[in-house]
């Protein structure tokens, strides 16, 4: 019942995946202009900068995650078929991650090259993005479901999501330090909590849309 939903949303998401990826790469390109061409500084701060860019890029797709389906009556059709709201939320989270996480991890390769990150740091960045982006996707869908139909929902979504993503940013960027093996575990714990809690929060938000 759920796999056609994931497929549909993934295809829709991939068609629009260029935008967050382009944003991510432009942010990575702008960083050296802001802090100057000091290669050592860029290599040291670049990983954290890429994590921040990933976080900000995750805000871009939020408006198209739930609102179009709510407007088009698609969510009503799911509900009339007895599909649980939590299932719909989980499908949307999985689809959003599939169309957003891997492209971002690919874009981190040229991003890391632009900032002169060394290979071990790049490896740790990819690992922390692999662990952190599902949680970013889960937060994105939850916030999208919470802000459907509100005026200025795009800006509001950013205000709601960014504070919730602070632990991901701290542990994600923290995991880039070679001596900081605990950060990756804390990132994993945070991401696990967010990713598996989000379908219930987002599902409740979807249910309240119908009242």
């Amino acid at each position, binding site marked *: *019942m759920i796999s*056609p939903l994931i497929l*549909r949303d993934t295809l*829709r998401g991939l*068609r629009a995946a260029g935008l967050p990826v382009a944003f991510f790469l432009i942010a990575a390109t702008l960083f050296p202009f802001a802090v100057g061409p000091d290669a050592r500084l860029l290599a040291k701060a670049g990983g954290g900068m890429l994590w921040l860019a990933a976080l900000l890029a995750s805000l871009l797709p939020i408006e198209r995650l739930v609102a179009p389906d709510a*407007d*088009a*009556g*698609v969510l*009503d*059709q799911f*509900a*009339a*078929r*007895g*599909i649980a709201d939590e299932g719909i939320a989980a499908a949307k989270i999985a689809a959003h991650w599939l169309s957003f996480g891997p492209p971002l991890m690919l874009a981190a390769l040229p991003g890391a090259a632009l900032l002169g990150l060394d290979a071990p740091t790049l490896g740790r960045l990819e690992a922390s993005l692999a662990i952190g982006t599902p949680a970013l996707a889960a937060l994105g869908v939850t916030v999208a479901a919470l802000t459907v139909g509100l005026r200025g929902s795009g800006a509001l979504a950013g205000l709601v999501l960014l504070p919730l993503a602070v632990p991901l940013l701290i542990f994600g960027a923290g995991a880039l330090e070679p001596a900081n093996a605990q950060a990756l575990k804390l990132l994993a714990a945070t991401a696990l909590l967010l990713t598996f809690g989000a379908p219930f929060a987002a599902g409740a938000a979807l249910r309240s849309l*119908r*009242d």
Partner: protein
Amino acid sequence: MLALRDVACLRGDRLLFEGLSLTVAAGEALVVTGPNGVGKSSLLRIAAGLLRPSAGTVERAGRVAWLGEAAALDGDRTLGEALRFWAKLDGTRPEVATEAMGIAHLARVPVRYLSTGQRRRSAIARTVASGAPLWLLDEPANGLDTEGIDRLGDAIRAHRKAGGSIVTATHLPLPIDDAENLVLDGILA
């Protein structure tokens, strides 16, 4: 097929109706009429399980097919793909239904290029293809031309002959034989 007992509907602080009971048996059709804002759509949404009644109980025997105001078809897909997505969820195929609604030739056209009436026919085709025994149709004739309304009437007749039931809220007269009528007059509001 459908049984509502002592159902009440509260929207905001407005009581639309209360103590409403009705049953729809296999092969029956119920036409709900009444002025705008009296709660026809809310009644249908309650029957579909999309809205929780403020009081009372709702029983449905099997699956329902919901036809609401919005077509719920993805604009960037072709009509054939968009209908196949829903048919896959329902475990059916849409081809016979699109033929019956006279939109089979539009299968390769992206949904965003379709007119209001063509979208409405497509949404009806999804309802027909769903195979659900109970159809809940909210203003099904909106945007349809006379030929479309005739095709809708034929689809409803065939559905009832096969033992299905319908509940519809409508302002436009529909070609439905020996239907039960429920007039919501809003004396409560």
